[in-house]
C-alpha cells in the first residue's frame, strides 16, 4: 500500500478545509488536504452564495454578525476574484413586525455594519423589481461570492507554499498509536485503491460529516444537521442582494449569482449529511416569500432546485429546546480532542458560515500548531491570494463570455448555448485532467456546461460526443457518462415540474428518451456502477 507522510492532514475540501490548508502552508507546515469528492462539492458547493455583511444575524446572533462583517471585509481584500460587490438591501414590508427595523439598525451600528437608510424610492431606483410596499429599507455591504473560485484560490495559494490537495480520496479510518492519531487510511472513491497518510495531526474539516468522521475513532461529536433548499431563477431579477428585514426565517434572501437569482433558504432538520433532496413544499415557500419583496417572481422561470446541509454545532442540551435551525448559533467550534477526549493528533472544526471560513481556519490551525509546537502566527488576512488558474471565471461578469465569443477571443462551435461553452474550451478542459477520469459533471463545475435554462437538454449529448472522442471511451462508457449527467441535471429539475420548466423538461425528455433512446441504450449495456459524484457548486 502506498504511504505518504506529511505534518498535517486536512480532511475536507470545503471552504473551511481549503482555508485551513492555506493557513497551515503559510505557517510553513507540510500539509495535505483530501476530499472524498471534487473540491467544493459539500455544503460549500451547495450554499446560497452570500458573503454576509452580518446584518442577518445582528439580532439573533450578535457575535456571528461581528465575525461576518470583519471577515467580509477581509475576503473582499484577499479574494476579489471570487466576489461580486452587489451590495445588499434589507427590506421591511407592512407584513413584517414594525418595531424590528429600528432595533435592527441600532444593532448594526453596534456591530460595525454600515447600514445606510434609503427611501423606498431610492431602493426602487436601484432595484426596480422591488415591491411598492416598503416600510423601511437599508443598504449593507453584502456581496455575492463564488465558493468554487474562492476554494480554488485557497488551494492554489496552499500549493504555492508547498501544500497539496488530493481529490476523490475518502478517509475510511484513522491510524492510531496509543492515545494519538497518527494519520489516516484513504480510499480512492473512483478506483477503490487504498493508501495511507501519516501525519502528526489530522484536522477534521468535514462539515456535516464531522460527526461521522470523528466516529471513525469512536468519538462522539454531536452536530445538528439542518437541510436548506434553494431555487435558482432563470434570470437575475435583482442585481443587489435582497434580504427581508425581519427575524430570520424561511425564504428571506434573494442572491444574484452569475446568470441566475437564487431564492433561499429553508431549514429542516435531517439526520443524513448527504440528504440533499428538495421538497415541493419548500419550493412553494421560497417562491411565496420572495414574491412579497419582488412581486411577480413566483411566476418567473425556476431553473433548478438544490439543497445543502448546515453543520450547526451546539452543546446537545440547548439543541433540543430549539424548534428551528434558524435560531441555532451560526458560531463555530474548534474541538481539541486532546482536552475533550484524551486523544492527541485530532482537531475538529465545525459550524460557522462560508463567510467566516478564514477565521474558522485560523482558530483551528492555532490549535493544530499548538499541538505541533509550531509558533508561526496566522497571516492569511495580510495578503491577497494568488489568482487561481481556473479563475477568474468571470461568471458574475454577465457579459464576459458573450463578449469574448463575439469578439473572436473564444473561437469554435458553441456546445452549451445557454452558458456559452465552446468545443475548444471543453477539449482544453478535458485535456487538463490528463489521464484522470473525467465526468461530464466535472466539466459542468469547471465551465458551467449544462447549467442554463435547458439543463443539458441540448448540450449534454454534444458534450458526451466530445468526451467520447477525447477520452477514447467505449460506446457503453459514453452512454453511461451521458446518462449520469442528464440524470443528475433532471434530478434538480424534478421539484420544479410546473410551468416553464415542465415544458422544458418534457422537451428534454423527448430528446433523450424518445429520440436518442437513452434508456434503451443503457439497458443494452451492463448495469451502471454506483456513481460517486453527485454534487457541487450549484448556482
Amino acid at each position, binding site marked *: 500500500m502506498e504511504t505518504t507522510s506529511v505534518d498535517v492532514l486536512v480532511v475536507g475540501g470545503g471552504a473551511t478545509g481549503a482555508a485551513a490548508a492555506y493557513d497551515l502552508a503559510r505557517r510553513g507546515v507540510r500539509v495535505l488536504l483530501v476530499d472524498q469528492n471534487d473540491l467544493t462539492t459539500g455544503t460549500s458547493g451547495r450554499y446560497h452564495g452570500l458573503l454576509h455583511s452580518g446584518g442577518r444575524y445582528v439580532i439573533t446572533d450578535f457575535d456571528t454578525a461581528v465575525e461576518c462583517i470583519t471577515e467580509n471585509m477581509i475576503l473582499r481584500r484577499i479574494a476579489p476574484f471570487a466576489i461580486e460587490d452587489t451590495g445588499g438591501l434589507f427590506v421591511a414590508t407592512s407584513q413584517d413586525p414594525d418595531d424590528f427595523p429600528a432595533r435592527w439598525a441600532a444593532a448594526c451600528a453596534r456591530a460595525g455594519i454600515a447600514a445606510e437608510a434609503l427611501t423606498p424610492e431610492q431602493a426602487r431606483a436601484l432595484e*426596480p*423589481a422591488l415591491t*411598492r410596499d416598503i416600510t423601511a429599507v437599508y443598504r449593507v455591504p453584502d456581496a455575492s461570492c463564488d465558493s468554487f473560485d474562492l476554494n480554488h484560490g485557497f488551494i492554489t495559494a496552499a500549493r504555492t507554499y508547498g501544500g497539496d490537495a488530493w481529490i476523490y480520496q475518502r478517509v475510511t479510518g484513522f491510524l492510531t498509536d496509543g492515545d494519538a492519531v497518527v494519520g489516516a487510511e484513504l480510499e480512492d472513491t473512483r478506483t477503490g485503491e487504498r493508501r495511507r497518510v501519516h501525519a502528526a495531526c489530522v484536522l477534521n474539516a468535514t462539515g456535516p460529516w464531522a460527526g461521522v468522521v470523528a466516529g471513525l475513532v469512536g468519538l462522539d461529536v454531536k452536530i445538528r444537521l439542518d437541510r436548506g433548499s434553494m431555487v435558482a431563477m*432563470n*434570470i*437575475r*431579477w*435583482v*442585481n443587489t442582494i435582497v434580504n427581508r428585514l425581519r427575524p430570520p426565517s424561511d425564504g428571506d434572501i434573494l442572491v444574484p449569482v452569475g*446568470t441566475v437569482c437564487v431564492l433561499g433558504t429553508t431549514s429542516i432538520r435531517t439526520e443524513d449529511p448527504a440528504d440533499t433532496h428538495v421538497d415541493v413544499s419548500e419550493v412553494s415557500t421560497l417562491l411565496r416569500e420572495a414574491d412579497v419583496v*419582488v*412581486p*411577480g*417572481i413566483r*411566476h*418567473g*422561470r425556476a431553473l433548478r432546485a438544490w439543497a445543502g446541509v448546515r453543520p450547526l454545532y451546539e452543546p446537545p442540551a440547548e439543541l433540543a429546546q430549539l424548534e428551528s435551525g434558524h435560531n441555532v448559533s451560526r458560531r463555530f467550534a474548534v474541538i481539541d480532542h486532546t482536552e475533550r477526549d484524551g486523544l492527541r493528533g485530532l482537531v475538529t472544526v465545525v459550524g460557522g458560515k462560508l463567510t467566516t471560513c478564514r477565521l474558522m481556519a485560523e482558530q483551528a490551525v492555532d490549535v493544530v500548531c499548538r499541538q505541533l509546537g509550531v509558533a508561526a502566527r496566522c497571516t492569511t488576512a495580510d495578503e491577497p491570494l494568488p489568482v487561481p488558474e481556473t479563475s477568474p471565471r468571470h461568471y458574475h*461578469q*454577465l*457579459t*464576459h*463570455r*458573450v*463578449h469574448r465569443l*463575439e*469578439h473572436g477571443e473564444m473561437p469554435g462551435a*458553441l456546445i452549451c*448555448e*445557454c452558458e*456559452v461553452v465552446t468545443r475548444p474550451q471543453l477539449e482544453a478542459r478535458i485535456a487538463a485532467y490528463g489521464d484522470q477520469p473525467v465526468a461530464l459533471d466535472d466539466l459542468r463545475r469547471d465551465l458551467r456546461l449544462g447549467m*442554463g*435554462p*435547458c439543463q443539458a*437538454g*441540448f448540450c449534454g449529448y454534444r458534450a458526451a460526443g466530445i468526451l467520447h472522442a477525447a477520452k477514447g471511451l467505449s460506446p457503453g462508457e459514453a452512454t453511461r457518462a451521458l446518462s449520469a449527467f442528464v440524470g443528475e441535471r433532471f434530478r434538480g429539475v424534478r421539484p420544479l415540474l410546473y410551468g*416553464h420548466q415542465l*415544458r*422544458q423538461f418534457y*422537451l428534454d425528455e423527448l430528446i433523450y428518451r424518445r429520440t436518442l433512446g437513452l434508456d434503451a441504450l443503457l439497458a443494452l449495456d451492463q448495469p451502471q456502477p454506483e456513481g460517486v459524484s453527485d454534487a457541487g457548486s450549484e448556482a
Partner: protein
Amino acid sequence: MMHTASDTVMSDHTLSLIELTAFTADHCVKCNICTSACPFAKVTPLFPGPKVVGPQWQRLRDPDAPSPDHSLDYCSSCGICTLVCPHGVKVMEINTQAKAKLVETHGLSLRNWFLARNELWGRLGTPLAPLANFALRNRLVRWAAEKVIGVSRRAPMPGWAGYTFRGWWQRQLRDHPRPEPVSDADRVVYFHGCSTNTYEPHIGKLAVAILEHIGLHVEVPPQTCCGLPAQSNGDFPGARRYAQTNIERLADYARRGIPIVGTAASCMTAIKGDYQHVLGLDGAEARLVAAHTYDFMEFVWKLHQEGRLPTDFHPIHQELPYHAPCQLKAHGFGRPALDVLSLIPGLKLWEIDADCCGIAGTYGFKVEKREISEAVGWPIAQQVQEAGAEVVVCDTETCRWQIQALTGGTAIHPVVLLAEAYGLSVDDYRPPVRADKRRAPAPTGVW
C-alpha cells in the same frame, strides 16, 4: 439580465417586471423553431440566429455594463422569430432593445443616423426633387455614398415626388371644404407615414379617396415619422421622441373612439406594438392609441365584416402575386389585403412563398448587408419570374422598392387595386358629395 435601459421608461402604468419584454426570455425552451424560421440566419454565417442573440444572450446582458454584442447587428428586426415562437418569447423585441444598448455602447454610425432620419431627408429633398432624384439615380453619387457613408449603391432608392401628401391635403381642404360629420363615429384618422408624404403621395390620395368613397370623414392630424427606422437602428432616444409626438397627437382621437388607419403596414405595427414592447412606452395614452390603430386593409376588412363596406366593384381581370411584408405578418391578423381584394370580381391574387423580401426597413440599404438582403429576397424574384408576372402587390413601401429592384418589375400597394375597382381617380380629385345619403349605415356605438 434585468431592467434594460428601455424597460425603465415605465410611466404611469405599473407593470410587474414579468410582463416586460426582456422577461419573455423566460419562456424559451430552446426548440430552435425561430432559428429555422429566421430568413437572415438562413443565408449568412455572420448571424447566429434569433435564439442565440435573443433569449439566450439576454440572460448574459447587464444593464450597467457595455454591450457585449456584435453579431446582433445582423438581425434585421423583421419579427418573423416573434411570430413563429410557440412559447411567446418576444425575440425580435429583445433583439431590438439589445441593439439600442449596442448603440449606447458604441454610438450611432453616421450612416445609421442618416438612415434613421428618413423623415428629415423626405422633407429636405422635396423642394429639390429634380436635383435630388437626379443625384440618387447618378452612379457616381451612389458610388460615393457607398464608399463614404456605406449606403449600398445597389439598394433601391425611392424618388421624391416633388410635392407632399400633406400639401395636397391642405389644398383639398381649402378648395373643397368637407362638412363636419354628424358624429365621431363617422370620423377616421389617416396616418400617412413619411414615405407616403414625400415619395409616394398618390398612395395617400388613393387612401383618402377610398375612405371618403366609403362615406367616412377623413382627418389628417399633424404627425411625424413612426420612429421605426430610428428604432431598428438602435437609436431609441430618437425613436422615442418620434413615438411620443405621435402618441400626443393621436391620443385625443383615440380617446374619442376614432380609428387611426394607415397604409404603411410597418408604421402601423410600430404604433400598435413596438411603442410598448420595444420602446417601453406603456402609458395609458400609448395603449389607447395602440388599441385604436389599424392597418388600412385590416380596417377595410373590418368594415366589410360589419357590413359597412360598399362592394360596387368594377371587375379587374388579372392574376397577381402578393407579398405579405414581415411587418404586416407581425400584426398577427392574417392577410387582410388578400381578403379585401378577393371581393373584387375577376381579380386573383396568389401569395408568394417567401418570409421576407430582405430589405427590412433600412437593413438592405447597408453596404455590408446588401448581399444578405438580396439572398433573403431572392425567392421572391424567382417566383415572380417563373410566373411571368410584372406587377407585385405589397403593403409596405420599402418592400415594394426592394421587390422592384429584385424583379425589375413594378410593385403596388393594394389601395391601387381597390381604388381602381371603385372607379376612383385622384387626378384632380373631388370628394363625393353625399353627406345626406351616406352608404355606410349609421354606426352602432363606438368602434
